[in-house]
């Protein structure tokens, strides 16, 4: 350490208090009212999905032809549907479908979107042109029409509905990641890394990818509810989850003909969809407030 002494280090400015870390972001998120509300509802949904058999008062598939379209009561909290199944229990089991759809659809759109975005933004100009023109093509179709077309090709089922919604979400992610990659590639520290011999692949993986996390989280919280809503719409059209499954969209379609005689059978799944999507949006707003670099 003789060098350290010969080149004496000065007492340079003291480090600033730590901002922008994950713990700091979490603390800010917990103080954000909309994130708190949205987050709590989502936690409740998560809890219901995990412990559905214990939380639900009845079997969601148990048919009771004698107790059809009963109004809400102490035994059937939210009443029964057209074949006498307990709506509350079906809603609780429905959280599993809801979360499954969110997970699968976001994994498909996110996974492929990130990959394509990184290749387009970080790779050659040819790859960029090819990928971006393909996403332009996908985006040229109205979203729901694109989803319908994919389901028409793959055949109607819960899984194809999730795949269709996932595929239709790819262009959005790809564009977001590409734009981040293009911005980060212009940064001076990328130029510095390149000057010191970092390869392009290394720059993309160790520099560009970490920089996409914060915009990605925010985008995820916006794109996921749209995907979930579209999947529910597909089920409503009979192209997603099939008949006895307690999926919220499918529940809506079965009970819609009794809207005037048994409004609760329609209102309950409709409200469930609304509350779940709305709380995701609330959490998304909170996340954006916390992670927006202009605020930090």
């Amino acid at each position: 350490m003789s060098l350290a002494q010969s080149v004496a280090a000065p007492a340079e400015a003291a480090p600033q208090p730590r901002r922008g870390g994950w713990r700091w972001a979490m603390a800010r998120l917990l103080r954000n009212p909309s994130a708190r509300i949205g987050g709590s509802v989502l936690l409740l949904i998560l809890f219901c999905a995990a412990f559905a058999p214990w939380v639900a008062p009845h079997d969601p598939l148990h048919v009771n032809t004698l107790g059809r379209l009963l109004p809400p009561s102490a035994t059937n909290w939210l009443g029964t549907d057209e074949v006498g199944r307990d709506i509350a229990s079906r809603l609780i089991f429905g959280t599993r479908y809801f979360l499954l759809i969110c997970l699968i659809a976001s994994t498909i759109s996110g996974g492929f979107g990130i990959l394509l975005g990184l290749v387009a933004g970080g790779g050659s100009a040819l790859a960029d042109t090819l990928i971006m023109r393909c996403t332009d093509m996908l985006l040229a179709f109205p979203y729901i029409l694109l989803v319908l077309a994919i389901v028409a090709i793959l055949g109607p089922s819960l899984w194809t509905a999730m795949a269709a919604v996932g595929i239709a979400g790819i262009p959005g992610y790809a564009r977001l990641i590409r734009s981040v990659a293009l911005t980060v590639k212009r940064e001076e520290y990328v130029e510095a890394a390149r000057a010191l011999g970092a390869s392009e692949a290394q720059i993309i993986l160790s520099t560009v990818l970490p920089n996409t996390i914060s915009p990605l989280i925010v985008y995820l919280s916006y794109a996921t509810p749209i995907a979930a809503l579209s999947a529910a719409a597909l089920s409503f059209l009979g192209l997603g989850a099939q008949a006895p499954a307690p999926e919220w969209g499918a529940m809506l379609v079965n009970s819609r003909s009794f809207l005037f005689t048994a409004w609760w059978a329609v209102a309950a799944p409709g409200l469930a969809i609304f509350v779940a999507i709305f709380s995701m949006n609330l959490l998304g707003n909170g996340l954006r407030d916390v992670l927006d670099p202009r605020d930090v």
Partner: protein
Amino acid sequence: MLEVRGLRTQFGTGAGAVRAVNGVDLAINPGEVLGIVGESGCGKTVLALSILRLIDAPGRIVAGQVLFEGTDVLAMRPRALTALRGRDIAMIFQQPKASLDPLMRIGSQIAEPLRLRGGRSRAEAWREAVELLGAVGIPNPEEKARAYPHEISGGQAQRVMIAIALALRPRLLIADEPTTALDVTVQAQILELLRERCRVLGTALVLVTHDIGVVAQMADRVAVMYAGRVVENGKVADILGQPAHPYTRGLLRSAPVMGAVQARLREIPGGIPDLTRPLSGCAFAPRCEARQQAGAARCDSQAPPSFLPRAGWQARCWLQAGAPQAQPAPEAWA
């Protein structure tokens, strides 16, 4: 070790191209410190970037050779080029804080090249990174290695950059205005550190700067650039003592001298020529005091070749026409 021959780098294409580097010849010997000095826009940064082929579109290296140990860097395949960068030739930049990845701990940024390219294990690389941090004069290196770039000062950031750049013990370090963005009190310390580390590792240093005082203090040899060309090139003692080129004289007169009482610093009148136009004659002629006195018509019409006022000292000026010529006059500069 490194030889630059007839290097030309242009920005833009066609007739409007800016000739930022316009036929530069340079040589750097192992272990020496070469200062490249000149005013803003003279092409010194572009020259430095061209050596490592870091010129992005619309810039383009249109001619010349950069020979490192006899291999032409400009003809290298991408893989060989990335292998060269950092391991043989490293570079540091003007804005140290912007040169560090904000999302990565500084210890990891030093350890990464050691691990990926130096073949060290994760633990070894980290230990070596901490050692390197100590060697560049960061106090508390073990603790500081875990800091993020926003937690350290500009001076410390440049120390970290020096540690990263020298981690793989390159043969040559190019420092592009390494102290311009720093506080005056920190500047001298960073320069001293650079010289010290390069001497210890036997690394040659190319110091790009607009501060002729820095060159006087640090360099063995100096190349003075003007309008994309090297106008004077030789030992620091020779050139700063008795500049042969009128532009170097002007530069020296415009710099303050420590301890001397000067009524007023003398600027060089006029500005740099339009680099999109082909130059006939000496680029400095329109601003040149000596030319105005001598009235040499040759200055305006014919580009001056390199004359040798003394061995190892070249000056591109017709007023040196009495001295022996270094080489036959190059083909007319476009």
